[in-house]
């Protein structure tokens, strides 16, 4: 069993992991197409597609409003909702059996979960945990932000800094570990079943990746979104 090295593209001094970028753009394309499909011809009495879209938006509206209050919640709804939908589809992306395609010199990699590359959870955590910090600066001012590191008393400064680091590490590695672990388990089951030949059952990884992709992936997407909202709302919302 070997893991193929990722395809790398170098532009200037930066290295791009072309596989992940490709898979992420596929996720985004599917999401955009779905959104366009579900909301074409909006009517007052919703059809089936529109009802599904309205259900997703309403559920999330309630969640976001509960954490941020009605004034802040509405502007933040598209941001948080997009994060959740993106994560759900990303975590479940391994279940689409699209192989690697090569046409001439163009290589289209196989469809894998983009979140199994640590760069993606790290970027999302930077965006959303960092967004919470920016929101704190905006709502309490720079002095209030600096002062929050010395609360409740001055000696808590190291603890507060450690908390900031811990939030970031735990939220990003939770997503990465779960998705990567599920993908590794599915690929090992697949390899084992093909290699052993006692049980020639290559389809065994379909239920396994369904479990890890759909169920665990959905739970982890929800946990990531809820945690991002909780961290941000604790910082922003004043009691």
């Amino acid at each position: 069993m070997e893991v193929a090295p990722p395809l790398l593209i170098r532009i200037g001094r930066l290295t791009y992991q072309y596989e992940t970028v490709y898979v992420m753009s596929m996720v985004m394309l599917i999401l955009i197409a779905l959104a366009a499909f579900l909301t074409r011809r909006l009517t007052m009495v919703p059809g089936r597609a529109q009802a599904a879209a309205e259900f997703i938006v309403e559920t999330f509206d309630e969640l976001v409003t509960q954490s941020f209050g009605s004034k802040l919640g509405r502007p933040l709804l598209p941001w948080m909702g997009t994060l959740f939908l993106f994560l759900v589809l990303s975590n479940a992306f391994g279940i689409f059996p699209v192989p690697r395609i090569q046409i001439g010199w163009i290589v289209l990699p196989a469809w894998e979960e983009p979140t199994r590359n640590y760069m993606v959870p790290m970027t999302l955590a930077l965006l959303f945990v960092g967004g919470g910090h920016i929101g704190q600066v905006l709502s309490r001012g720079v002095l209030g932000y600096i002062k929050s590191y010395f609360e409740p008393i001055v000696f808590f400064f190291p603890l507060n800094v450690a908390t900031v680091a811990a939030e970031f590490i735990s939220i990003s590695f939770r997503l990465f570990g779960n998705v990567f672990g599920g993908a590794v388990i599915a690929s090992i089951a697949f390899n084992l079943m093909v290699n052993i030949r006692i049980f020639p059952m290559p389809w065994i990884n379909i239920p396994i990746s369904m479990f890890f992709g759909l169920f665990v992936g959905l739970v982890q997407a929800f946990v990531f979104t809820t945690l991002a909202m909780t961290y941000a709302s604790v910082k922003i919302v004043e009691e």
Partner: protein
Amino acid sequence: MLDAAQIEVVGEVLRYIAVALAMGFGAIGSAVGEGHTAGMMLGGAARQPSEYGGLFRTMLIGQAMAETAGVFALFIAIILIWVSDPRTLVAAVANVSGGFAVGFSGIATGIGMGYVSSRACEGMARQPEVSDRMMLSMLLAQAMVTSAFMFAFLVTVLLIFGGFRDTGSFNDIVHCAKYMGAGLAMGFGACGPAIGVGIAGGEACRGIAAHQENSGLLTRMMFVGMAVAQSTAIYSLVISLILLYAV
């Protein structure tokens, strides 16, 4: 240093030790959790004999989830026996460490999962009309308990399939210690979070049975509490990955 034949013998010995660690430890927790679930289900059936069917189904699903740790430990043990072939000392030590990680974290995972499903059985016996909602909460909570175990399983797989080789120098001892450390960190580190997350999930199931109208709020707060309880397992995972690849 040892010569090739001696290393082969030591590798065999270490491999069987790894099998024993994985399966022996891994069998403990699942059994305790499943027994606890069955006990609570029997208590519930004594209280509500008419709800026997639903309780029995919940017990079976909960026990199947609690079995996960045992099944994965068995899986690792079979891989260690038949598939893995440590020709080098470093690889053999990595196998032992991987077996320990999956086995020891399995103890807590089985207990945590069993706690969730036993509380779900108890709550369902108390409030038979919440059974669908209760099943969903139980599965969500158990999926969260699994994730600490999944980190341990990931580290185990990386240790076993890492393809570690001897360099032939005295540095091999350092590498052995490094891989041993990765397995120990993850095996111990996943233990507490699994039980803690299981307690949070179990009490959430009990709360949903008592106050059905608050189930949305309870589920959301359950996820936040679990995520915080779980973060120490994530620190262990980070340290294990650093030990494996970055040092």
